[in-house]
């Protein structure tokens, strides 16, 4: 006699998280991404400093005059088209999208999704697990960039002085940026479930969607961020994750999975 018991959502989520975390940290992808994030600020800071050794000259060229410029800008600075605005930590949101898209497309490309969705009729645990694991991956990338920026700044001999913001502001800025990755993770995840094994399509669409939000990032998470910025980014990230997670779930339920 066959018996068919139902398992709770939390139990399913736990097993899904185990699998996804195992996958994330046994794949070279996350290490490559973290490595790139670590090396990128070192290269940018050292090379741009070499371009303009005099502080005034550097400012004229729009290169870095302070280590913290690799992390963000102070409120009111807005988004300009100079080097410090374009080549800072905000670039990572696009790399996060690449990470998520590859992670999701790999499920469909390998046929793993076929095995998974045959035995799991509910897709919500898949969406929750992917969102959480990719968020952790994105956090690792941001931390790697931060460490890289500090080392790069020290090598380049850039000052660590804080003008108009304190250490708390930098921490709040980093937290805000990390919480905001939830928005980009959920966008990329949603587009990944639409594109399935078509990796190029999900990356392309994620970049396009990311460009729309990109200009808002410096305004929401400046270097002089406070508690309000952190809460706002946390709430925004949460809302996007829940909303787009529901859309991803719907897409997986209503479309063909192979």
């Amino acid at each position, binding site marked *: 006699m066959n018996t068919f018991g139902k398992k709770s959502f939390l139990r399913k989520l736990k*097993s899904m998280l185990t699998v996804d975390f*195992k996958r994330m940290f046994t794949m070279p992808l996350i290490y490559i991404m973290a490595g790139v994030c670590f090396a990128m600020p070192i290269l940018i800071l050292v090379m741009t400093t070499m371009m303009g050794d005099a502080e005034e000259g550097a400012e004229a060229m729009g290169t870095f005059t302070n280590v913290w410029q690799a992390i963000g800008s102070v409120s009111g600075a807005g988004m300009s088209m100079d080097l410090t605005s374009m080549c800072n930590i905000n670039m990572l949101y696009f790399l996060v999208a690449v990470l998520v898209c590859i992670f999701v497309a790999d499920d469909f490309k390998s046929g*793993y*999704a076929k*095995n*998974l969705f*045959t*035995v799991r009729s509910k897709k919500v645990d898949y969406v929750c697990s992917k969102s959480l694991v990719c968020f952790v991956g994105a956090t690792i990338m941001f931390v790697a960039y931060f460490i890289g920026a500090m080392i790069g700044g020290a090598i380049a001999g850039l000052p660590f002085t804080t003008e108009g913001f304190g250490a708390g502001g930098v921490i709040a800025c980093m937290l805000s940026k990390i919480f905001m990755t939830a928005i980009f993770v959920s966008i990329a995840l949603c587009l990944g479930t639409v594109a399935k094994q078509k990796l190029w399509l999900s990356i392309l669409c994620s970049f396009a969607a990311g460009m729309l939000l990109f200009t808002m990032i410096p305004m929401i998470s400046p270097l002089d961020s406070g508690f309000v910025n952190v809460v706002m980014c946390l709430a925004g990230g949460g809302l996007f994750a829940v909303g787009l997670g529901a859309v991803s779930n719907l897409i997986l339920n209503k479309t063909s999975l*192979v």
Partner: protein
Amino acid sequence: MNAIEIRNLTKNFGQKQALAGLNMTVPQGAIYGFIGENGSGKSTTEKLICGLLVPSGGEIKLFGKDYKDAGVREKIGVLIEQPGCFPNYSVWNNMMLQAANLEIPNAAEEVRKVLKVVHMEGSASNKYKNCSLGMKQRIGIAFALLGNPSLLILDEPINGLDADGMRIMRDVLVDVTKNYNCTVVISSHILGELEKIATHYGIVRGGKMIKEMTAEELEADCRTYVALQTKDMEKTQALLSRKYANVTLENDYIRIYDDVKAEEVVSYLYNELCILVTEVKTEKISLEEYYIDLMKEGR
């Protein structure tokens, strides 16, 4: 209770209708041979049962419950096209991931067990991408067997298997149905192999089920014939056609499908026509021949 009950299942891919009101009944514990030409809708039906495609219409019930029921779906083992493995992972790691998905207690032990069943225990550390086609098929079968499934859906599982692999496959399927009350749906173009294990058959054409029957019904349906060889086959065939209604020349043998005994034919040819029969045998038409005849009828 039936393991699978499908009523009026339809599936459209844009303008193309892949399934046009397919009905299917698979009794529990059966090995159901699912046969049809390429593009007849076999794989589409299997994917729909597994929830990988969304039906355009109709009803699918598994063990009396809706096919979306989470409890039922957890007990499905599947091998459709290729096993879903990560190419850069070892066979073992791929299996362990699926075991974790299925929340199998003592996962390592269970994985070891199923790998042993398909004779792959020695290749567990190999990277999946380095496995041969036959090995991949065996891994796929091992994947499907993980977690003692109640329903196994296998799409062309024999493809790429060597003789030993086919024998293992047969033994495994018979064992799971007999000892674990598992139901198996297996589609294959290698009808000779299917004939050795299937207890039920479903023949699909143009997205519709044209015939469902048990192995016993097939046996009864498959006509017996007398096959013989003489020195002048064409002349003998012509002469026999005067006496018997259904005489054909197929595969180097004259076949007489009428209800007649071999000895009678031999005696008639020798005594009345002075034709010496060099070889004679009584045979039944195979599943393959039955299937080909059935397909011809529909054209």
